[in-house]
């Protein structure tokens, strides 16, 4: 039975359970809901949850476990002789499962009946021809075919039992929950406990994912540092990976590029964003503000690859022709300056939007107090509003900084891919993120230090941005305490 139908039936059962449960308790209370411990809907929900949750839980676990068990049972049908030279058991198993799916498609299209498919042999030219005619040719060894047929059989039996078990469980839950219902049954407590479990589950997913990401980074990094000395990685000033061996994987040039580009981006974005925020929150009329603020926030919605294109075709050549070449500082189309400026544009909305909110959160009474002492509007902003908003603004800048450090596409297209340490902002450089992409794309051996270095780089980047984020959150929180 297809999983889709099982899900639908269970949902229908649980909807019925909801109606039945609510109706039953109302009947028991002679229609007076004040006699009940909980409101009527909670009785309905308690039945619905008992009907659906255990069934779905079993369904979920079953779907994970079934393939593993089937793999194991099918594997017995493939003798060691059937595995050709240079092949592994996994490859043959893959072939068997592919044939199994071909056969099941054939059954679905009425090319073969189910018994015919299960008794097919490689000598049966009539059935094989029928398959070929239907564009579903089966060409394999007899052992593999038998394995495929076993695969088909096991899957069929598995899904049959899956349907029986889940529907039975669902029905049992329905009956059990219905029988439990009495006016003094604490249905709300049951439902709320389940709901709380659900909420906890969702937040756990987020945390578990983070932990999983960190762990996978850590383990891969450890295997990298087994192959490559950590001193050379952290303190090496040369980045020349070569898959033939003898590569130098010092991360300092990449770290330098990352920080250089981020600093230029922030030097551009912070003043522009902050001044825009001051204009919007202090000077603009509400009507202007309602137009300007969303317009600036559109910048945040542009995909970074589009910014990259802008850097590549417009800003890069412009900077080369009007700044770098006249000053004799190089003639590279891609440069740190290009990537930094374009990234700065990308960061403007982050700085301006957050700062605007923070400046608006400064109490009007402070502005009144300052104006009431005879200070001008600009003195008020400079000496009262901005100092009061400063912690929040710093938080906004740090969030923008971690965005800048993690940015990839703008750097690829704007700054190029040359790993070097140089002070000249008109030269091509590259960042950690770009090199992570570079090391992992392509058909490479996944156990070589040249590939594994990506994970060590990723971990470095993660620690860097995590540190910045924690610092930003700490500052933002400290600021919040001030006016509450």
């Amino acid at each position: 039975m297809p999983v889709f139908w099982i899900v639908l039936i269970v949902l229908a059962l649980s909807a019925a359970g909801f109606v039945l449960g609510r109706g039953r308790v109302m009947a028991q209370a002679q229609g007076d809901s004040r006699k009940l411990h909980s409101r009527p809907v909670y009785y309905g929900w308690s039945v619905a949850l008992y009907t659906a949750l255990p069934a779905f839980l079993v369904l979920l676990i079953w779907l994970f476990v079934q393939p593993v068990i089937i793999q194991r049972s099918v594997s017995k049908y493939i003798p060691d002789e059937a595995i050709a030279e240079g092949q592994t058991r996994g490859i043959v198993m893959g072939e068997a499962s592919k044939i199994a799916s071909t056969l099941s498609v054939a059954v679905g299209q009425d090319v073969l009946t189910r018994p015919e498919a299960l008794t097919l042999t490689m000598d049966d030219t009539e059935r094989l021809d029928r398959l070929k005619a239907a564009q579903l040719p089966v060409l394999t060894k007899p052992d593999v075919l038998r394995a495929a047929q076993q695969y088909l059989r096991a899957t069929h039996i598995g899904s049959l039992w899956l349907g029986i078990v889940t529907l039975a469980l669902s029905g049992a839950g329905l009956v059990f929950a219905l029988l439990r219902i009495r006016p003094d049954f604490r249905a709300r407590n049951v439902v709320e406990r389940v709901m709380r479990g659900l909420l906890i589950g969702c937040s756990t997913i987020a945390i578990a994912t983070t932990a999983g990401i960190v762990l996978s980074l850590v383990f891969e990094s450890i295997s990298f540092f087994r192959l490559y000395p950590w001193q050379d990685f952290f303190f090496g000033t040369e980045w020349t990976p070569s898959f033939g061996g003898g590569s130098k994987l010092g991360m300092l040039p990449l770290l330098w590029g990352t920080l250089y580009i981020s600093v230029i981006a922030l030097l551009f974005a912070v003043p522009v964003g902050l001044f825009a925020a001051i204009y919007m929150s202090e000077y603009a009329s509400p009507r202007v503000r309602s137009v300007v603020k969303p317009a600036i926030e559109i910048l945040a919605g542009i995909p970074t690859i589009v910014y990259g294109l802008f850097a590549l075709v417009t800003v890069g050549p412009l900077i080369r022709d009007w700044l770098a070449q006249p000053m004799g500082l190089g003639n590279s189309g891609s440069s740190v300056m290009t990537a930094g400026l374009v990234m700065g544009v990308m960061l403007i909305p982050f700085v301006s939007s957050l700062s605007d909110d923070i400046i608006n959160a400064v109490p009007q009474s402070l502005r009144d107090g300052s104006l009431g002492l005879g200070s001008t509007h600009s003195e008020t902003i400079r000496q009262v509003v901005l100092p009061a908003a400063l912690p929040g603004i710093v938080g906004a800048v740090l969030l923008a900084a971690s965005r800048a450090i993690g940015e990839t596409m703008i750097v690829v297209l704007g700054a190029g891919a040359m790993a070097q340490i140089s002070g000249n902002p008109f030269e091509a450089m590259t960042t950690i993120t770009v090199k992570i992409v570079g090391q992992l794309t392509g058909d490479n051996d996944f156990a070589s230090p040249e590939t594994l270095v990506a994970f060590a780089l990723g971990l470095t980047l993660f620690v860097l941005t995590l540190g910045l984020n924690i610092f930003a959150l700490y500052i933002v929180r400290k600021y919040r305490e001030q006016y509450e």
Partner: protein
Amino acid sequence: MNDMSLVEREVTQDDIKITARDVQVYYGDKHAIKDVNVDILDKTVTAFIGPSGCGKSTFLRCINRMNDTIDIARIEGKIALDGEDIYDKRVDPVQLRAKVGMVFQKPNPFPKSIYDNVAYGPRIHGLARNRADLDEIVEKSLRGSALWNEVKDRLHEPGTGLSGGQQQRLCIARAVATAPEVLLMDEPCSALDPIATSQVEELIDQLREDFSVVIVTHSMQQAARVSQKTAFFHLGNLVEYGDTDDIFTRPQDPRTESYISGRIG
């Protein structure tokens, strides 16, 4: 009543500081202040009383043009400080507010140190020639607002760390340090406990020596205690204005009488 008459005898000043003629204030379509005429004396405490929403705070904010910061507010009529129209085009509200200081309902110390809070006005207006001058102004203002002894050892701690009453006295010190001619107070004690209130009231009485003080208050007892002149506002009208003693003992208008005896409010 004895101390009342004592206060009354002290009203020796009759120099007019502020003159208001036919003042109208509109908030959008709402006519908030209607035909207000009043003469406020120098070196006197004048109290504005009246029920909530009667326009007393609005009128107070007209005197230093704080209503300018509200986009929808519109003011007509004439208000003069020492005979000069403050709504004249040539008058800069910033300069006006340096002469007419304001203390607000809720204590609003800046998120700076106590010292910097008080030094804020003098620094902006260049009242101090050097650091020693500034120190002296800060000390004098804090002494003047009866806060010096409590904060002299922690001048460089944040002003927001003080108690509510101390914060309000800090705000008064901040206003005093700017050396204004008139001090406007918008319900300065409404957020304070009785002890802090009596300290601030005492302070207001002292401030009268140097400034013309205008105070908006909800408490009739407070008006009676601290003021020499009282104005009663009702529904945007100035109903009655006169010596505090007269207003509270021999009100001329039936509305004033109803209000002070608690029948309307």
